[in-house]
């Protein structure tokens, strides 16, 4: 079986972001980028399924500029077999990303698509569900445990209030939550080896997709700052403040 994993290049999660002064977006020039952490978990899960001999091939795909190749090389160094870059300089919304991925799925015919539950830049949490809808495949979102058999997957999902287990028939889309696994690190020999693994570049324009704009970003602003707080010296003082100043007790 083949697993397709979709990965995104995002601002490194440990970087404190800055909103551009013209309010058109967030500063990305000269900022450390990384693979979206939820996608690393998806890659890891795919590799584990291959190690269990459930999957025979792990293909990773990313959509973006040439810079996304570094994320794909990282995925190859972790152990993916092959990579695909859909090259475009357009900034795309979730629905259009899902439409591009649908085309990739139709070409690659994987039995399972693994994706992060959300990208830490847009925080949308949409693409896996949208891709499932477009393919009319079942979806298992927020997976924290996955048991695969030849026909179906038993997936434990993290939901508000606890856990839910569902059974989905293959082919299916699974989106990963943080607790699914602990991603491995790439070793130096594997980083070297990854340079020789196949990385195909497909131009978005050559895919024959009619992508329409559905959302217009008007502006991006910094959130309202909280006013400076006060240090209190004792529990008595804290309770007094909460009762008499803040009036929340």
């Amino acid at each position, binding site marked *: 079986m083949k697993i397709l994993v979709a990965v995104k290049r995002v601002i490194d999660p440990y970087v404190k972001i800055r909103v551009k002064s013209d309010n058109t977006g967030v500063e990305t020039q000269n900022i450390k980028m990384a693979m979206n952490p939820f996608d690393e978990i998806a890659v890891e899960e795919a590799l584990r399924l291959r190690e269990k001999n459930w999957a025979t091939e792990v293909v990773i795909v990313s959509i973006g500029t040439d810079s996304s190749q570094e994320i794909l090389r990282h995925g190859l160094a972790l152990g993916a077999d092959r990579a695909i870059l859909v090259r475009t300089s357009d900034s795309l919304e979730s629905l259009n990303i899902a439409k591009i991925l649908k085309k990739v799925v139709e070409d690659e015919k994987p039995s399972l698509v693994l994706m992060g539950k959300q990208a*830490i830049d*847009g925080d949308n949490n949409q693409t896996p569900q*949208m891709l499932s809808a477009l393919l009319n495949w079942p979806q298992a979102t927020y997976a924290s445990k996955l048991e695969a058999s030849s026909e179906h997957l038993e997936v434990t999902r993290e939901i508000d209030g606890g856990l839910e287990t569902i059974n989905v028939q293959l082919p299916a889309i699974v989106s990963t939550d943080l607790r699914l696994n602990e991603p491995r690190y790439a070793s130096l020999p594997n980083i070297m080896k990854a340079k020789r693994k196949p990385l195909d570049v497909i131009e978005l324009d050559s895919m024959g997709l009619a992508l329409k704009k559905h959302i217009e970003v008007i502006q991006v602003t910094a959130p309202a700052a909280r006013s400076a707080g006060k240090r209190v010296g004792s529990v008595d003082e804290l309770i007094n403040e909460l009762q008499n100043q803040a009036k929340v007790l």
Partner: protein
Amino acid sequence: MSTLILVEHDNQTMHPATRNVLSAAQQLGGEIHMLVAGYQCNAVAEQVATLSGVHKVLYADKPSYEHPLAEQMSDLVLSLANSFKAILIPSSTFGKNIAPRVAAQLDVAQVSDVSKILDNDTFEHPIYAGNAIEKVRVLDAIKVLTIRTTAFDAVNAAQAACTIETLDKECIAQSSQFVKHELSKSERPDLGTAKIVVSGGRGLQSAEKFKLIEELADALGAAVGASRAAVDAGFVPNDYQVGQTGKVVAPMLYIAVGISGAVQHLAGMKDSKVIVAINKDEDAPIFQIADYGLVGDLFELVPQLIAHLKNK
């Protein structure tokens, strides 16, 4: 043209966040229809019908709707979608699972975690873990939105029950089945809607010592939350987690104990009205957003706080 709200419930009571989604829908204007789909959930439909401002309840009661699988819920919503200009779902795991599927089936955009409605096409929502706010205009005719419920006031007023219309449509998900639930049981207020939240972090050191947080919460009638570090260390189950990857809360009072204040955590609580931080590290980032900071050993300060509250 009107707004459809997909109601989250457990077949017995509607989720309290329904009141907040309703208030967001009222800002859009037009009639508001509530879709209650479940199994033996007429009590929910009756409860929803008495919320002020609801024009009609659409009630779908079928065994297959007992658990809200995305495949069948989105097909059901889709069968109704064309008579509405907006479809609103709370931004919970329930809503986030279903809304994008509905939007893609309709070939329209979906806006996640809407925190402000500027007009019928223009919305604000947080991105980058709440470190930036994006204002977007949706160009599609039907708007599919998940609502950040803590950003909208709850509708508490009641009305004489409106019409409840029974829907006969049954959507069965052939390729997906519910297996089981493992829900964490708690006597305390729900984390998402509590007026006061007390959260503990890695500073609590163990599951045993985390009970101190629960004692403090009980003294305040508060819900208990936790940082991701506390969850990962196994002190509490993961549905206690407040943060970008857990729950987003905005209570009147948030007390962070032994939590350093990583970006991940702040994204889940920084809209709280009053934030109190108790931490021994005076340079902890949590103090930069706390209204009241108390530097010291939590194992001395928290028992003092509990004693104080009990003597009141």
